[in-house]
């Protein structure tokens, strides 16, 4: 049974948890407050001038249109793919399960350069949407896959026994069971699309984020960029409200293992091989086009790099991503636990702001930290902790989502049992909650690690002088038209992100307790 019948009394959250949630909230609010201040520090006339012009409306339309298209396509692709490998008799589905997550490792700009180099006519909306869907659908696929495997098959069986057809069962029962996972995933995709720079820049499509970035780079006057940044935050409020309304409801925990029998397998029949080809075709397209482009760069170009440069950047990327992942998970944990165990005003607001942080363009986060750092945190200015703080702001929601899901899936009944046997809250937390949610912490760290490794705009602005990641080396070589020298960095970057992606998927595949 997915629902335990008794209403559970929610105790007040421990004070440490509340402080942690507030701190995370404050960190993410910093850039939002900064752009609000910067947008209005020269009065309201520049604000009106920037907002009330036809071009701004075009930018909002472009941004919202792209986010909607990418979100819809990612839901279809992500849920469809997860269902195929989790619920059907698709040939070779075990391998495909891992492979379908791998596009997460592809940096948007690497994909963008490749597609536009191969098919220049894709420039614009189509190309941007194509690239973004192809690399962001795993944000839906992974949580839905996990949720499908955890979902109690009993309900679907009941529906089948009651005479519903398999497809009807899927839409009426299974999709409802995994709805929170879909909503969480699609929210990440939509917000990611709004804050994304690499794909829209390479595909030459003007969204708010791209124009904000360009404005910051091209002008001493930062007011228009700040005004557009505020507008972007306002736009992201819409999907946030919708997601909270649609996603938060319902409990998904199971106290026990549920029905002790295998999930029924949907027979694909004549669709087995077409589905097989579609799945692998997707993977091949996502990786073959960029690979072909890198080979083309090396063959056409004469620039070169050294092993030392590549391995140095590789090492830097590894440790900075690892540090950022650890910090993000640590800061995300109180918010996630609040949201899972103590839903209330504080948890709602913390989660909201964290997701808003995910929608902030990297350049806005970076500049606000520069502004703050120069004035109030001199010793940290242009040091690694500031860069890590930027990553935390941008990727907190990735970690919260994963941890929250894991905590929510472990039954509070087990904690209550421990508490009733005399364990103190901290001890309950250490001995019951954390071990049960451990895979969630792993997923959270891995998701953040992958995102940090690929991040470019904030890294360029905030990295301590002399620190070079694979992404920044890749950028500076392509900027200098040294494409052959750039290729190894792109390949190494995909590699650095691909291995954790594989590990992450394995974690998702492990059977729930």
């Amino acid at each position, binding site marked *: 049974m997915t629902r335990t019948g008794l209403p559970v009394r929610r105790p007040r959250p421990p004070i440490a948890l509340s402080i942690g949630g507030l701190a995370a909230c404050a960190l993410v609010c910093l850039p939002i407050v900064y752009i609000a201040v910067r947008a209005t520090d020269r009065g309201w006339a520049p604000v009106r001038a920037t907002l009330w012009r036809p071009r701004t409306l075009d930018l909002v339309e472009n941004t919202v249109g792209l986010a909607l298209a990418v979100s819809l396509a990612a839901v279809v692709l992500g849920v469809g793919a997860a269902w195929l490998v989790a619920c059907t008799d698709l040939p070779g589905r075990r391998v495909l399960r891992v492979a379908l997550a791998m596009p997460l490792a592809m940096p948007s700009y690497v994909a963008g350069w490749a597609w536009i180099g191969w098919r220049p006519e894709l420039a614009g909306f189509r190309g941007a949407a194509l690239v973004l869907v192809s690399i962001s659908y795993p944000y839906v696929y992974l949580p839905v896959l996990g949720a499908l495997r955890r979902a109690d098959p009993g309900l679907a069986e009941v529906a089948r026994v009651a005479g519903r057809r398999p497809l009807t069962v899927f839409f009426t029962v299974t999709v409802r069971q995994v709805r929170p996972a879909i909503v969480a995933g699609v929210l990440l995709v939509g917000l990611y699309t709004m804050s994304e720079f690499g794909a829209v820049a390479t595909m030459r499509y003007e969204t708010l984020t791209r124009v904000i970035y*360009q*404005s910051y780079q091209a002008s001493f006057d930062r007011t228009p960029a700040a005004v557009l940044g505020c507008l972007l935050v306002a736009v992201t409020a819409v999907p946030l409200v919708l997601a909270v309304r649609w996603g938060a409801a319902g409990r998904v925990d199971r106290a026990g293992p549920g029905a002790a029998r295998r999930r029924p397998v949907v027979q694909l029949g004549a669709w087995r091989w077409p589905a097989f080809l579609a799945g692998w075709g997707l993977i091949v397209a996502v990786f073959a086009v960029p690979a072909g482009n890198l080979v083309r760069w090396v063959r056409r170009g004469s620039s070169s790099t050294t092993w030392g440069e590549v391995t140095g950047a590789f090492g830097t990327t590894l440790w900075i991503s690892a540090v950022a992942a650890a910090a993000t998970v640590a800061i995300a944990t109180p918010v996630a636990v609040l949201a899972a165990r103590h839903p209330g005003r504080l948890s709602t607001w913390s989660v909201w702001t964290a997701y808003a942080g995910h929608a902030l363009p990297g350049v806005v986060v970076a500049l606000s930290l520069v502004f703050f750092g120069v004035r109030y945190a001199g010793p940290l200015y242009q040091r690694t902790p500031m860069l890590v703080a930027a990553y935390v702001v941008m990727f907190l929601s990735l970690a919260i989502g994963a941890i929250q899901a894991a905590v929510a899936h472990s039954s509070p009944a087990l904690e209550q049992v421990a508490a009733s046997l005399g364990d103190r809250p901290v001890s309950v937390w250490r001995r019951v909650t954390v071990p049960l949610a451990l895979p969630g912490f792993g997923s959270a760290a891995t998701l953040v690690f992958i995102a940090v490794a690929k991040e470019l705009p904030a890294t360029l602005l905030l990295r301590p002088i002399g620190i070079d990641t694979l992404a920044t080396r890749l950028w500076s070589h392509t900027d200098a038209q040294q494409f052959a020298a750039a290729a190894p960095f792109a390949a190494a970057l995909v590699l650095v992100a691909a291995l954790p992606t594989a590990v992450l998927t394995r974690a998702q595949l492990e059977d729930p307790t």
Partner: protein
Amino acid sequence: MNTNRTPRRLGAVALVAALALTAAACGGDDDDVAATDPPVATDATPEPTEPAPEPTQPDAEPEPEPEPTEPETPGTTGAPAPDTTAPAGESLEGLELTLYSGRSEGLVQGVIDAFEAATGVDVKVRYGSSAEVGAALLEEGDRTPADVFYSQEVGAVGVLAKAGLLSELPADLVSSVDPRFQPPAGNLWVGVTGRSRVIVYNPDLVPEPPAGVLELTDPQWNGKVAIVPGNAGFQAFVTGFRVTHGDDAAREWLEAMIANGVRTDISSNGNVLAAVNDGELELGLINHYYWAGLAAELGTENMVAQLIFPKGGDPGGLFNATAVGITNGGADNPAALAFVEFLLSEEGQTYFVEETHEYPVLPGLADPVGYPGRDELDGPAIDLTDLDSLEATQALLTELGLLS
């Protein structure tokens, strides 16, 4: 569940691919930019046209040949510091210098390496666009860690000079460069290299190219021209346009270009050049030296794109300069002045001529091979200091929806 082999297999495939690419691109160690064929449609003879007052400098080589015995080559670690760069001699050893560079790493890291080798100074560089790094300097004020700001063009140093963030340079150093590249008063910055704005075109798509930017509002170029409004060079061009032709004329030209479907979707000069070279785009407005950068990567024989240096005062032929200034904090750091002196030394200047194909600012040095000589360039006649009304240009571009 036995899925653990799969990730390893995928990882191994990715690893092999990465290693193959790295091996292919790490092959050569040759970073020399060979002398290139003239990219200019009109024949420009590569020989230096002006008589050198002191013929100590080897002439520009029309083709690659063994380096002269005098170790003037940038990047040669054993090169002793030229006289001009060592006012404090060995005392610079171990000093640290923080440079904010609006110029990109690929263009200037070589000369920084040469400076470090010659002086023992440890240079920390923060790279970005000129406006981005300049805005950071404005934000940081006198709390900035930067000692030196090296800008893509004169406008950005002018803005910082006006904000009182730069300190005065020695008058004899500033007066050592061509008067065109000196500030008229204050000595708060000095030009380092010259570059010309150009029109790049694809001869296969455009058999009869325009002679200047004023023609580009003609309907025959509708949708065929790309500009990069965020680029410092483009903004300097618009400033020059405003200064020489008046604000109204510049605005009218921009509006006519917008009405004529000018493309602003390509995000950098380098990408515009690549698009023209690949036949994806007919024309673009860029700086001249990008051509040499792409030619070095693809090979001169693979260059389709050609350059036009607009003449007769056409604003599209603006001859602009990169410029350097020392911050107030950097005034106390002897390495800061030594670095500026190094940029203006024969060694530094020769680096730019040979590696980035820019024009030297020291009198008597040869022009980059394959481009019109400094004295053949015939862009708008302006005082570079006039380019410091950069913020007015940015406001105009913003108002027209080209910047944000």
